[in-house]
């Protein structure tokens, strides 16, 4: 069900095609340095056929579609926050039936040969939308669900989510006199999705464009539900410099805070720089290097809060060891 052939993206050719088709038009209102904008373009670049794009409520939705404007040159639909996967299920089922019935075969104005992509943020995925995704995956709809994880409810003003990391300052986990940032760790969203027995799941850091494009393409080519966890820097919410967005996306991988891997039919496989870190553990950078570029972790660098960095590092090490074991290292 998952294609074995590896697609070799030619970035120059893809950029040329993107310039012609402009699937996501410029002029949208995403912040400077927003990771989601890069992810959107990479998804569109990796498409093998036309797309129908379903979006959960969130930054991407509000920033790309303020009536009467839209950035989308692909068919696009937004219904609500928690139901994007259910909407995607309906679109996929309708397509299947209409193709089977040859409903629009004689109509040159209608195209039914497309892939369904569903995009949601961490709020729409870890929290409020989890049930709809679980249902869609259990029913084996052929949809690719992409989580752009900027680790908090950024659209509503930086409130913590199930995807917010330990220690991070958000407006609902402030750095107070007693409690400093979020006292809990991220929900293991990849494990939850992989546990559905879906044929393909992968993590993506947009900084590694080749790795990202290959995974998105593999997702489109997979027969059945696909989950892609994409890391998405948020300068506004993280207190990082817009020009550091890609640097942070790289550091997340290099520190193993966000390792790159894919799960094909239950088999774990490391990809990109995570492979060389697995082979040469001394290449694994300390988490401080990742944390120090972001204002949301600043309080952790105070001498009295050093334990928080240690705790963060312990958690990362443990997660990484588990992953290494699963990937056969």
């Amino acid at each position, binding site marked *: 069900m998952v294609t074995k052939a590896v697609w070799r993206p030619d970035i120059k050719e893809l950029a040329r095609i993107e310039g012609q088709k402009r699937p996501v038009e410029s002029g949208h209102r995403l912040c400077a340095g927003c990771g989601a904008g890069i992810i959107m373009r990479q998804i569109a670049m990796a498409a093998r056929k*036309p*797309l*129908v794009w*379903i979006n959960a409520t969130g930054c991407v*939705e*509000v920033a790309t*579609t*303020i*009536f*009467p404007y*839209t950035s*989308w*040159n*692909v*068919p*696009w*639909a*937004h*219904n*609500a926050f*928690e*139901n994007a*996967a*259910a*909407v*995607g*299920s*309906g*679109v996929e*089922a*309708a*397509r*299947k*039936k*209409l193709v*089977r*019935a040859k*409903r*629009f075969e004689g*109509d*040159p*104005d*209608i*195209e*039914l040969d*497309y892939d369904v992509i569903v995009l949601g943020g961490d709020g729409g995925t870890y929290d409020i939308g989890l*049930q*709809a995704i*679980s*249902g869609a995956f*259990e*029913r084996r709809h052929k949809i690719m669900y992409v989580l752009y994880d900027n680790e908090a409810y950024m659209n509503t003003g930086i409130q913590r989510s199930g995807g917010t990391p330990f220690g991070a300052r958000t407006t609902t986990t402030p750095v107070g006199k007693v409690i400093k940032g979020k006292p809990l760790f991220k929900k293991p969203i990849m494990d939850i999705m992989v546990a559905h027995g879906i044929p393909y799941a992968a993590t993506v850091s947009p900084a590694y464009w080749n790795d990202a494009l290959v995974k998105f393409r593999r997702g489109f080519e997979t027969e059945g539900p696909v989950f892609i966890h994409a890391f998405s820097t948020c300068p506004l919410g993280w207190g990082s410099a817009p020009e550091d967005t890609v640097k942070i996306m790289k550091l997340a991988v290099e520190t193993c805070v966000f390792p790159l891997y894919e799960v094909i039919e239950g088999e774990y496989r490391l990809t990109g720089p995570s492979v060389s870190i697995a082979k040469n553990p001394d290449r694994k950078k300390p988490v401080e290097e990742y944390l120090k570029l972001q204002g949301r972790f600043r309080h952790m660098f105070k001498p009295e809060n050093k334990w928080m960095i240690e705790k963060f590092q312990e958690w990362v090490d443990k997660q990484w060891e588990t992953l290494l074991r699963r990937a056969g290292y």
Partner: protein
Amino acid sequence: MVVQKSVSQTMMALNGDEAVAWAVKQSNVDVVAAYPITPQTIIVERISEFVHNGEVDMEFIRVESEHSALSASWGAALAGARAFTATAANGLALMWEILYITASTRTPVVMAVVNRALSAPINIHNDHSDSMGARDSGWIQIYSEDAQEAYDNTIMAFRIAEEAMLPVMVTLDGFTISHTLQNVSVLPDEVVSNFVGVRKIPRIKLPHIHGEKEIPLMLNPKYPISFGPLDLFDYYFEHKVQQNEAMKASIPIIERVHREFSEIGGRSYEPVHMIPYRTEDADVVLLGLSSTMSVVKKVVDELRSEGKKVGAIRLRVFRPFPADMIRKELSGINVVGVLDRSLSFGAEGGPVFLEVRSALYSSSSKPTVYNYVYGLGGRELPPKLIKKAFNELLEAKEEPERPVIKYLGVRE
């Protein structure tokens, strides 16, 4: 109920839920997305059997909640499919957010609502609190009196929804209709199929992008459209007014589809929005919804035989609310009793009463209006209580003293 034309129909013993499932089976539905809830379950069970026996070609999405049921139906309809769902009570309440979104994006989903009381306390029996709670959500609402009408209304609903570009809720009373076996006259498959056709995709113009070209209004890579954008104070208000206009514009569509349905051999429900019974010279009428009105009509016959000038009006279409027709129908009536099978907590009366009395405010001959709330949580309304209400109305001369609501069949 008059059969206009004779086509060979099959008389089947069906309960209301089965009648709805048969209508869905015959109406070229492409996608069903539904979640089981008592007393709607028989609908999804029968549809499952039709699908698993290869009797119908549709995608049936067994979703994990009613919220997803309507969300998936919405996605399917936007992708060009004819979509159907069904629910009741708490399931409808869980859909609340998506009810508004479906209507406001002008998406023609058809839904059967098997009327059941809302929690708490949890109760599985019939009242109208579920669909009345959804009365402001922008859905057309048609209330069915019996299993036959549930079948007929479901078939007509697909045409109405797609022509009006509005979602339609067809309701039937839980258990009283949904689980009660009746003789239902089922039209031949091809007659229903021809009547509803397959889902046609409306075409729109986007002159600044495609000039005079009419493009299909659906999720379609050939002509991409963005559905469900952010819409703030500079346009939202106009869109809401347009939506309200669309509701009003559906009135003649509802009438035409009913007429055409009677022409193919289906039943006639003239004059569509409400059906008067022995009101010509009546002094007093009881107005209400759904299956209760069958019993009210029997009581009318009984009282008429005693020489009492009473009548009944069964409201079928509650949204859009036929205010003009209410005024016309009730002119010359001295006293009207409005039957409500739900409460609007803190309001002066039940939802039907509030609408009817408001419509009558501008009528020259203002009848006196009483409000009877009955049957909550499935409590029975026996003929003797209906008779009691009629006798009270026959003696009434002026508006009742506050409080307006009179409860029929409640222990004091």
